[in-house]
């Protein structure tokens, strides 16, 4: 069902809403297409003309600096025109304008793509179901549901360091329950054939049916980290520390914070990832975040390349065809 909406009749990416339902072929294609873009940022002229004449609207119903910025840079490096609309603080949201009315208005301005970030799970699906046929929708994070470009930039980073996926043990640590990043990573890893995906956290932060997604659950971090090749730490939102989910940041760090000592249980060549922004001393110690095994800043640069790949694919422009298109 998800893939029916996301792929056109020829099986090409039309919207990018969730990893779920997409095959290994499409995911690998995204990773392959991102490779040449990874060099663009280092060129003297940081632009390719793939999306010249296209208009991309960043619709952010929830505030975000990093994700919005990397989407904006990705679009600009593809030579598209970019419209940034922060609806979380804009007049339309406060005037009670409906989501559909706003979309109709933007469609009337001939936008070709909406990059959507929204606080409610399912918002990107809803928008993709109701947009005009010429508009592509990229999910930049919807509620607790999905953040597929984040997951793909993580896969890109893993592949650059580890090569193929089929030998990899990957641990995702922290607040799985509220994390759209974790959900998308799990689908991406299982689709790309990772040998084992583990989730680590207290029961209060792990959905009871998470096993149905094909992961192994660990509540003891030391046990869960043993021999893993990749450690993905999740951000713990401050509001989770109040109430009945967790007693305190201190105890959380003690049990599930990544320290050098705990990391020593993983494979010696393990890499450490984090979708950012990191809470030092809450989910990860500074010595690890800034240490030799950390690839956290690489993830950020890779984010631009992967988003360029997804945007160009959804608008029907492949990097290999640069010459003819230009």
């Amino acid at each position, binding site marked *: 069902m998800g893939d029916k909406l996301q792929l056109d009749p020829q099986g090409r990416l039309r919207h990018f809403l969730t990893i779920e339902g997409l095959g290994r072929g499409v995911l690998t294609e995204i990773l392959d297409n991102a490779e040449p873009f990874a060099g663009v940022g280092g060129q003297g002229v940081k632009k390719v003309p793939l999306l010249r004449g296209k208009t991309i609207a960043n619709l952010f119903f929830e505030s975000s600096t990093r994700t919005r910025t990397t989407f904006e840079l990705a679009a600009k490096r593809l030579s598209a025109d970019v419209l940034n609309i922060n609806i979380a603080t804009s007049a339309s949201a406060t005037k009670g304008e*409906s989501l559909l009315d706003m979309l109709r208005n933007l469609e009337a301005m001939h936008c070709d793509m909406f990059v959507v970030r*929204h606080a409610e799970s399912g918002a990107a699906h809803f928008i993709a179901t109701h947009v005009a046929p010429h508009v592509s929708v990229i999910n930049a994070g919807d509620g607790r549901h*999905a953040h597929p470009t984040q997951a793909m930039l993580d896969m890109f980073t893993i592949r650059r360091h580890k090569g193929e996926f089929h030998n990899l043990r990957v641990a995702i640590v922290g607040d799985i329950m509220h994390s759209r990043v974790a959900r998308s990573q799990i689908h991406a890893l299982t689709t790309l054939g990772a040998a084992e995906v583990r989730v680590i956290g207290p029961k209060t932060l792990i959905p009871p049916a998470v096993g149905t997604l094909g992961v192994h659950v660990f509540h003891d971090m030391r046990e869960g980290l043993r021999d893993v090749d990749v450690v993905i730490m999740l951000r713990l939102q401050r509001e989770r520390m109040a109430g009945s989910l967790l007693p305190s940041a201190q105890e959380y760090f003690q049990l599930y914070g990544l320290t050098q000592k705990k990391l020593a249980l993983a494979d010696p060549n393990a890499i450490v990832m984090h979708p950012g922004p990191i809470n030092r001393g809450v989910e990860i110690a500074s010595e690890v975040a800034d240490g030799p095994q950390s690839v956290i800043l690489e993830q950020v640069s890779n984010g631009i390349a992967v988003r360029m790949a997804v945007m160009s694919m959804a608008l029907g422009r492949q990097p290999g065809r640069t010459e003819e298109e230009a």
Partner: protein
Amino acid sequence: MRIVIRGGRLVDPANGVDRSGDLCIADGRIAGFDLADFPADHTIDATGRIVCPGLIDLRAHTREPGQEYKGTIASETRAAAAGGITTLCLPPDTAPVIDSPAVVDLVNRIADEKGRARLHVIGALTQGLQGEQITEMHALKEAGCIAMSNAKQPLANTLVLRRSLEYAASLGLPIVLHAEDPWLAAGGLIHEGMVSTRLGLPGIPACAETIAVGRDLLLVEQAGVRAHFGQLSTAASVELIAEAQARGIPVTADVAIHQLYLTELDVGHFNALCHVRPPLRMQRDLEALRAALADGVISAVCSDHAPHDADAKLAPFPATEPGISGLETLLPLTLRLVDEGVLPLSEAIGKLTTGPAKALGLDAGTLSVGAVADVCVFDPEACWTVDADRLQSRGKNTPFIGWEMKGRVTHTLLEGDLVYEG
């Protein structure tokens, strides 16, 4: 006015009747069967059709008063008549809440004037459904309320619940309970399980209902009140009700028809038409609910009719309103249970007539001689496809759109008046 409904298969579970014959109606009441000397003003040919008591729906929102843009008493009772339903029970969560005789009078006045089905009003158990101050239940009963309920806003405070049950028991008023633990269900949108995990939608665990059923049963037993549990959704709730019934506690229960066909999987990729409360559960819950219907633990099937305007479902899933428009599919979906071997026909019709009538002590749901002539005539073989544009209800919000239905109402009589002819 004298009417004869000729040549149909008469199914009247209240009297154990299932045979062919003519039903004779005079002055709004059942005059008898196969009367030899019965000059009729009007004859309805029911050859090949089933003639049964008008159906009773224990829970249906009319949206009036308060949300007339979603439905009115006129529009929704018209939909009821088209579905063969002659008696509707209206829950008290209208705007204003039905917590005073004035609101009961208002509803009854509109229903008398514009209704095509009988509307029974269920009064609020607490003022404004706030769960703090109990209502003037005697005054509400005098005004015509048939039962008391706090609708789908379950009482959090067990002391208030205990006292309101005791007070209702003193007045001989039955109670309708919707079991849900407000803390465990807080913020939840769909069943907590595989689909909520996949979609990242906050879940409502099955135990939110089961815990509340257990708690409510203990207080019902202590208060000695006649209690009915509305819209059970879990296998574990069914077990608790069965156990209470076995101990002789006078409790009954119903299930909403959609719970017998849909599960969490039907939410698919955020299908807001499957956003309903209590949420669609798992296959094993669906099977337990069907089994409970067959063995009598659940004695009634209702529509839990909740019509909405289009905008209520046109938003990201968490921002949509829960509920299914269900009056016009209640009968065909119940008949489908017969085809699927869950129930024999007369029992299926019993779940829509005698079952609900007994649950709330209603004087309806039978073709006994002298009874009010509420009658439903349907063609059990007629097939049709659910089409939003052809629904009489103002609410087009049903996940059954496009489903093939078998069984179509041809005539509905309310107190001997033909209120629907299809």
